[in-house]
């Protein structure tokens, strides 16, 4: 509890939001996939609805990250978070661009996918880079 109590209020709100969206994502994804692949046929509208519902927690995570940028009242920490998100965005665009041309030249059969997941992974990698010697 000491670690939690030492966290700034904006970090506590961010952590709670991320945990809520991640757990919602796991529950929604597994139950929606089980429903969609349950054997029976589903209408296009149902499948679109499932896609939107599954995407919702991911969109929520983006929202939580950008709320963190707004709510961080420590200006230096806010600068580091802004650098982190920009670095993650740049790294994601690099990966997607290379992947896209690998598909253009028939090296891979599938084009860029799961960009949100790639962005979150890049956000995680960007954190120590930005904070190194910060």
């Amino acid at each position, binding site marked *: 509890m000491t670690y939690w109590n030492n966290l700034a209020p904006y970090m506590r709100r961010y952590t709670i939001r991320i945990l809520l969206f991640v757990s919602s994502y796991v529950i929604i994804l597994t139950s929606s996939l089980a429903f969609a692949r349950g054997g029976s046929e589903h209408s296009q509208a149902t499948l679109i609805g499932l896609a939107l519902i599954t995407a919702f927690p991911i969109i929520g995570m983006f929202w939580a990250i950008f709320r963190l940028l707004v709510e961080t*009242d420590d*200006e*230096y920490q806010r600068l580091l978070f802004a650098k982190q998100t920009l670095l993650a965005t740049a790294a994601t665009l690099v990966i997607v661009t290379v992947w896209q041309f690998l598909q253009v030249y028939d090296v891979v059969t599938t084009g860029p996918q799961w960009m949100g997941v790639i962005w979150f992974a890049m956000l995680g990698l960007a954190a120590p880079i930005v904070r190194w010697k910060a």
Partner: protein
Amino acid sequence: MKNRLKVLRAERDWSQQDLADALAVSRQSVNAIETGKYDPSLPLAFRIADLFEMPIEAIFHRD
């Protein structure tokens, strides 16, 4: 921009964490300002000046 934050803090026998708590910022932020990696905004510079009861120009000055 250079500053006398480290000296002023040492004169009062404050740790970086003490100063950070007084300014409601992180210790990392105090360290970044002290080492010149980060120049604070004008509102934060005023808060620092108020805390040390000195004018801003007595704490921060040009390179």
